[in-house]
């Protein structure tokens, strides 16, 4: 099973915005301040929009190399929420085992 911890707490995020081939600016969270810690994201998984009633919420799946974080950005309230953290204490990667 999954080792997922549900958090659902507001967090402070430093985000980068990129030009997206002439379309709207694309946002990527870079650093998160949470629980007295600073977490620097090293990889973005998937960013997808979803709706909560009429509110548009952007979901970001981010990774800092040791855990996966799910963040939600409320486009109306302009607030960031840390939804969950999945610790990555899995067995060695299958592909890594095969190549070794």
């Amino acid at each position, binding site marked *: *099973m*999954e080792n997922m911890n549900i958090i659902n707490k507001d967090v402070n995020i430093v985000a980068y915005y990129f030009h997206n081939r002439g379309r709207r600016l694309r946002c990527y969270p870079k650093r998160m301040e949470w629980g007295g810690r600073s977490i620097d994201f090293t*990889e973005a*998984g*998937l960013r*997808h*929009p*979803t*709706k*909560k*009633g*009429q509110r548009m919420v952007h*979901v970001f*799946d981010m*990774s800092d190399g040791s*855990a*996966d974080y799910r963040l939600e950005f409320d486009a109306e309230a302009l607030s960031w929420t840390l939804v969950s953290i*999945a610790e*990555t204490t*899995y*067995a060695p*990667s*299958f*592909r*890594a085992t095969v190549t070794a």
Partner: protein
Amino acid sequence: MRQVSELRSQLNPAEPRLLHIDLNSCFATVEQQARPSLRGRPLGVTNRLTKNACVVAASYEAKALGVKVGMTFGEAKLFAPDLIMVETDPPKYHYVYQILVGIMRSYSPKITMKSIDEGVIDFAGTELVNNRPLPEIGYEIKQRLKDEVGRWMTCNVGIAPNRFLAKLAASLHKPDGLDLIDHTNLRQVLAGLQLTDLSGIAERNQARLNAAGIYTCLQFLDAPAELLHHRVFRSVCGDDWYQRLRGWEVDDFESATKTVGRQFVLDEMRPTEEFIRSRLSYLCETTAMKLRYKNLCARGVHIYVRYAGGDYWYERRMFKSTFFSNAEVYRRATLLFNRRPRGQFEREIGISCYGLDPSKLNQVSLLDEVNREAWLTEAVDQINSQFGEFTVTFAASLSAKGTVKQKIPFGSTRYFELLCNRA
């Protein structure tokens, strides 16, 4: 009726103009794309994180260890002890689906989504715009998918003169393959396949073919139309297979919605009456929502119960008046549900509405109570649309609200928007 002699017996010599795109292990790949730590690991996606829930999608790493779609989590763990199971996340798949549709639409207005993870682009008539060879466009689509979704996303592309062969071509080299089938290499491709590799030929059809002395795909291709029509399939299906295998199009049609429904395997081994009613009420609400989403109303209700001992009971009834509201679906379903045999514990319940007609909500009725029901339903739908589904709901459905989750539809994507609003 079509005569067997009218069937086209030669291979279709036309240039392939259909391109079939199939996302590889779609849900599992999307999850791996979303969470980098899952990449390269055996991963299963399930609708419920319980021991007996089945794997609805497995990553290629899990498939390499023997995990198959449809296995329970317990069975899959025997093959892959390090298997990681995650629950389905419909908005994610919907996002990828929308990107795929956008990419496909940029090439041709005539696209058909066969399911969440596969679709067909018909390039016929777009030669002036798409004057490049289709394999080149296929590789471009693969790259665009990686650029727009992420580098872990892969897809298979199949190019052929008809839908069946295009799907077959897309299944030849998984994952991340691209194949073309036309009249020049059709026999060569079929020679390397088994009958069950063909989409639409499973155990029973294979047995039918075997009974007529057909054991290989080439024998199937060379079989006379009369044999397929009269002895193997005993219907026009035989004619369709005769043409389909030769590259002629017989599958370009859309089927109309005949029924709308939901079913649920109960999450309690010894359910009480109150417990079952709450699940039934929830299923009725979601069924009515589906009806209204499709702008339909129904006249018939079909309800079934599967018991713990394996027994099965169903009843259906066609009513004189049409209905569309949550309360009416629940009332009519309860009429039938109360007649079920007692004495065993229920394991699964299902409800579906049939006798579908276009919705009459626009027409004000002469009967005041019908109008009041329509206006109330409309008002509740508006509140739920504004603040999220099930903001206003039956009290009876409350306990089921967090438990009965909308599952991912494998075939049709007709309720995908509705599903994502609810997720």
